[in-house]
């Protein structure tokens, strides 16, 4: 029983890192994604192509490779110290998820009929007013289901951090496996399930709250 308790505590500590990566990624990637969207929808061609190229590269390569490139790359290529382990993970995740989020946002924005923006303009609203008072709330309603998907994927993607030895929960469990104790690895599933369970309830609540908007 004490073994179970000790393993639970150790896994919880690892799960702390998991949650940190998860939260930091959301906090930075959600707004950064919006910037990427504006960039890739810009009428200024060079900016648009630059953003679309970045999105292509980031979505077109494995997150694991991006982690390795961001952590070891600066030191290997330019001899500079670069980022520490956890910051490197967060930077890689933020860039990666911002790009995926940006495409979801784009779908949301383009899903709002053009006529609404035109109507806004006719009424004398500025572009930013149209975005924040008309488009944004409809966009949010549209993107909740696909964003839920990405966010749930993010919970599990955090386990990739172990590639550069950030002691998230899977790595902690693997340490046990390597010392001969196998069950903690399967036990980690419970932590993920509970976390995703809470998120699922949260998403359902959000969708309910947004039901009043008819699109």
């Amino acid at each position, binding site marked *: 029983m004490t073994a179970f308790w000790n393993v639970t505590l150790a896994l919880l500590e690892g799960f702390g890192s998991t949650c940190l990566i998860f939260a930091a990624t959301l*906090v*930075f990637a959600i*707004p*950064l994604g*919006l*910037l990427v969207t504006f960039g890739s929808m810009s009428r200024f061609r060079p900016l648009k192509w630059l953003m679309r190229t970045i999105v292509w590269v980031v979505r077109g390569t494995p997150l694991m490779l991006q982690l*390795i490139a961001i*952590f*070891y790359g*600066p*030191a*290997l290529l330019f001899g500079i*110290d*670069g*980022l*520490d*382990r*956890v*910051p*490197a993970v*967060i*930077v890689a995740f*933020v860039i990666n998820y911002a790009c995926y989020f940006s495409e979801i946002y784009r779908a949301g924005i383009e899903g709002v009929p053009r006529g609404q923006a035109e109507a806004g303009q006719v009424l004398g609203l500025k572009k*930013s007013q149209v975005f924040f008072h008309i488009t944004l709330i409809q966009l949010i309603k549209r993107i909740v289901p696909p964003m839920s998907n990405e966010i749930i994927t993010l919970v599990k993607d955090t386990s990739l951090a*172990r*590639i*550069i*030895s950030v*002691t998230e929960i899977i*790595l902690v469990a*693997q*340490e046990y*496996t*390597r*010392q*001969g*104790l*196998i069950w903690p690895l399967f036990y980690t599933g419970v932590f993920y399930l509970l976390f995703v369970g809470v998120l699922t309830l949260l998403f359902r609540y959000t969708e309910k709250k947004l039901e009043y908007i008819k699109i």
Partner: protein
Amino acid sequence: MKKLFATLLAGAVAVCGIAALGACKDENTLVIGYTLYAPMNYKDESGKLIGFDTEFAEKVCAELGYTPKFQLIDWEQKISELESKKIDLIWNGMTITDELKENIAISDPYLENKQVVVMKLEDKDKYTDVASVGAAASIAVESGSAGEATVTDNGYTSKLNKMTAQSDCLLEVKTGSSEVAIIDYTMAKSMTGEGTDYADLTYVDVGYAEEEYGVGMRKEDADLLKQINELIAKYKQDGTLDGLVKKYLV
């Protein structure tokens, strides 16, 4: 809109700040890359890192006036970790091979090792010599390890299951996913048999060529290499290494 950009900018600055904090390094610290495995580097009941290599590295660092900092690494990234200066030494029961010598500097050997075959207890009579292991349907080895080299050297044609860690090879055999595993003698000895979680596994020394463990470092750290080699010679003479063998390997 401006406010939004300002907030984002502040966030970006914050990330850079956190990043810069972690980047500073101490001159007197040697960062030692390791992976957890008994008996070289592992944790005792209280969670303290112990083991043959842990104690050996601590002794060497103390004598040279460095503070050792043990950094858990992914074994497959060991060269990247070293070259990018995230770690200064690879000290984790690393078998000296010609391939490794091309890329990094390696100390004089400090411990003898050999590859052995791990199998389920009931298969004990099936695999007794070098030739009979070749008849196994599948062999688990750590990717890039001396075990994998053993498979190549002996021309085995069995299905090869490449794992990221030697200890994962044990799990392979326990679950029957691989019929046998070829891993270090030191690990097989301390992790299989009675009193371990792998009590249903055993190992056989079928007589593969002997090999040796060395400490890995960057080629440009020639002074450090010289200092460590001198200490290895000294510890061989004064019985320090024998003491560690008795403590962790017998």
